[in-house]
């Protein structure tokens, strides 16, 4: 019986290949989703940054516009028209939208040759605590002076550096700044720097508390972001203007994956550094969680698919093995005697042809022995077929034990056995083996407590002397076996013996 080749290695590897391929696809999808998610998060962060910058710029611009109104007032009246200034500010109806304004005031420019100065000549309180004091020389303070110079030279609103808390009880402790706008003499040309300096009358200003200014901005800070504003371009605790973080427990806390950006705002010719950073809450709010879902589902699907493919391949292999085993069983059944397991007539005949062919090619002798049990029918009749069958099995066993490993023992009828012996140097060897069989079978058998005695009659035909083909040998051995029966049983007759 030839065995089927093993399933090809690719088939065995297929579940792993499927697993690897599916995991690769999962990784690809997961990575793609992660990139998309990251880009979306970056886009959201960019939007938050632009929105924050826009809100601050808009707030500063609105205050600048308000101050321009006051500046315009002096196109029709004098700098010292205190009642007009007060009336104008009251007309503005500064509400919560301008809650950052601590006060609005007017500064007069006194360009004396010896020591110019710029006293605050009027203050109108806004919604916060006033920062400037009436009569205070703003020019003497270098921080205020720098901004006033910028406003004077450009004709545009100029923002001061960070101002600390003004001294005095009840004053706002938060940092702030002052926005200045110049007032020039009416009707004078303002094209050149010299013209602007020469025609300067003073400034209008608005002072701001930083916390209130930030609180008054329209819109709201993007959730999940922490915002810091610094004066100038070098962030430090000393230059800190404002800081706002998400409330504790609302996703606050630094992470390595946090997005952060710095933006440098130019407001009123002055630079503020804005630092925006995302907290956990930002990612929770704007981040997509699809990558984790894809990873989990992808891995589960990959494993399931690999398992399914493995199951299908294993099932197929099992089915093949089963079919193979059944085919072998059927083949065995077709070629062997079901009772004794010995080759049947068909297989025995096949072996005979092989041995004869070998002998013809290489020389040597082939012996065929026909064995018939003596009076077996009586045992069957006396003890039943079950005992008879058991006896046949034991006889088959003893015959098989008596011959050489290379010999073939077959059963071709009810109590008829055949033995094929090849590669014999001479006929004597065959005679010795048949003698062993005769003696072996003659020994009593013990079956189900019964001691049974049986003998056999044997006929021997040896190739090439007793026949050169299967049919002749078979016939001659069979005839010799019958002669042995006729000679009183329990003996061997050779085909070559005289009849």
């Amino acid at each position: 019986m030839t065995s089927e080749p093993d399933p090809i290695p690719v088939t065995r590897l297929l579940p792993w290949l499927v697993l690897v391929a599916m995991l690769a696809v999962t990784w690809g999808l997961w990575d793609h989703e992660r990139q998309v998610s990251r880009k979306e998060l970056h886009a959201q962060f960019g939007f938050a940054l632009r929105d924050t910058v826009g809100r601050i710029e808009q707030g500063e611009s609105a205050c600048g516009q308000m101050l321009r109104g006051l500046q315009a007032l002096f196109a029709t009246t004098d700098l010292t028209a205190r009642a007009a200034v007060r009336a104008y500010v009251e007309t503005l109806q500064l509400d919560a939208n301008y809650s950052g304004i601590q006060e609005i005031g007017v500064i007069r420019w006194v360009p004396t040759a010896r020591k110019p100065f710029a006293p605050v000549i009027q203050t109108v309180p806004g919604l916060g605590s006033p920062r400037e004091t009436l009569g205070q020389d703003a020019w003497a303070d270098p921080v205020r002076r720098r901004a006033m110079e910028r406003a004077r030279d450009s004709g545009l609103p100029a923002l001061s550096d960070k101002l600390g808390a003004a001294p005095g009880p009840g004053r706002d402790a938060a940092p702030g700044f002052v926005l200045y706008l110049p007032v020039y003499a009416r009707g004078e040309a303002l094209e050149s720097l010299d013209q602007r300096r020469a025609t300067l009358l003073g400034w209008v200003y608005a002072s701001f508390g930083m916390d209130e200014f930030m609180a008054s901005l329209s819109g709201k800070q993007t959730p999940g972001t922490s915002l810091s504003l610094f004066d100038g371009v070098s962030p430090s605790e000393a230059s800190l203007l404002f800081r706002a973080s998400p409330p504790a427990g609302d996703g606050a806390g630094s992470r390595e994956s946090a997005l952060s950006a710095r933006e440098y705002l130019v407001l009123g010719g002055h630079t503020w550094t804005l630092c925006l950073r995302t907290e956990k809450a930002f990612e929770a709010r704007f981040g997509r969680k699809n990558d984790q879902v894809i990873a989990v589902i992808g891995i589960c699907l990959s494993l399931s698919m690999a398992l399914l493919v493995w199951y299908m391949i294993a099932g197929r292999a099992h089915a093949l093995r089963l079919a193979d085993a059944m085919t072998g069983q059927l083949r065995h059944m077709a070629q062997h005697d079901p009772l004794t397991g010995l080759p049947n007539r068909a297989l025995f005949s096949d072996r005979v042809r092989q041995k004869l062919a070998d002998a013809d090619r290489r020389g040597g002798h082939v012996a065929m022995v026909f064995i018939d049990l003596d009076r077996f029918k009586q045992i069957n009749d006396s003890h039943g077929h079950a005992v008879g069958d058991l006896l046949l099995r034991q006889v088959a066993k003893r015959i098989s034990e008596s011959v050489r490993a290379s010999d073939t023992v077959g059963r071709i009828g009810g109590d008829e056995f055949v033995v094929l012996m090849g590669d014999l140097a001479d006929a004597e060897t065959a005679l010795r083996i048949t003698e062993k069989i005769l003696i072996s079978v003659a020994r009593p058998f013990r079956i189900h407590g019964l001691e049974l005695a049986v003998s056999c009659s044997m006929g021997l035909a040896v190739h090439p002397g007793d026949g050169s083909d299967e049919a002749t040998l078979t016939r001659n051995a069979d005839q010799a076996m019958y002669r042995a029966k006729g000679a009183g049983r329990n003996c061997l007759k050779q085909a070559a013996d005289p009849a």
Partner: protein
Amino acid sequence: MSKRCLTALLIILASLATLDAAGPDRSRSYTLALHDHGLLYSAATNAGIDKDVADELIRRSGCKVTVSLMARARIWQLIESGGLDFSLSGITDAERDTFAGFAWYFSDKFYLLVRKDTGIRNQADFEKNDRLQLAVIRSFRYSDSANRLVDRLQEANRLSQAGGLEPLYQLLVQNQIQGMIIEPFDYPALQEKEIREISTIVEFPDPPVPHGLIMSKKAVSALEQEKWRSIIQDMRKDGTMLRIFEKYFKPDLAAALVNF
């Protein structure tokens, strides 16, 4: 005699009508915004190339134009929405072409200004070194290579933005950033000793980029845009534009900028 006078009057009126038809619509007022950027416009001195170009445009058009100062990002936003009619020295890209028309009047190249101590010799070196930070002016776009560099560094979180030019120089001096993108009209700032000592120039491998009058498509009709474009062309043809640039640059550089 009276017939002759009437004929002459009609001819004069017809001539005026023709002139009106050739120039921009004077029945409305316009808005134009400048941005504080080196020699283009300096708020500190209320002077600059853009200011001069704006003055000449206003003079030639005869229109009432309110000029104001704004951040560049705000200018582009208003040009797109139609809240602002004009701005100056703008460059275009595919997105801007959808909402703005342009009348070109000069062309120049962009340069990467880097700190000398970085040892950077070209754009790729800067991009490869993760420790180097670039800063740009918000909403500014540049030539193709410069735009690619900006976009990649922004993706890598290596980009800061500012509302104007001045903070960028401060950051460069303080080594908070190691590079910024400049144009020839930023040169005077370069002449400041400190900047010149610490920095070097790397040229982007791009052709010069045209700059021009920006016109909001929502606020200014295509027909009116042509009329404003025609004024800019006249300023270039009669040498006015060159003279404006010669106020701020050496003659050869001014000619190189205007003649493109």
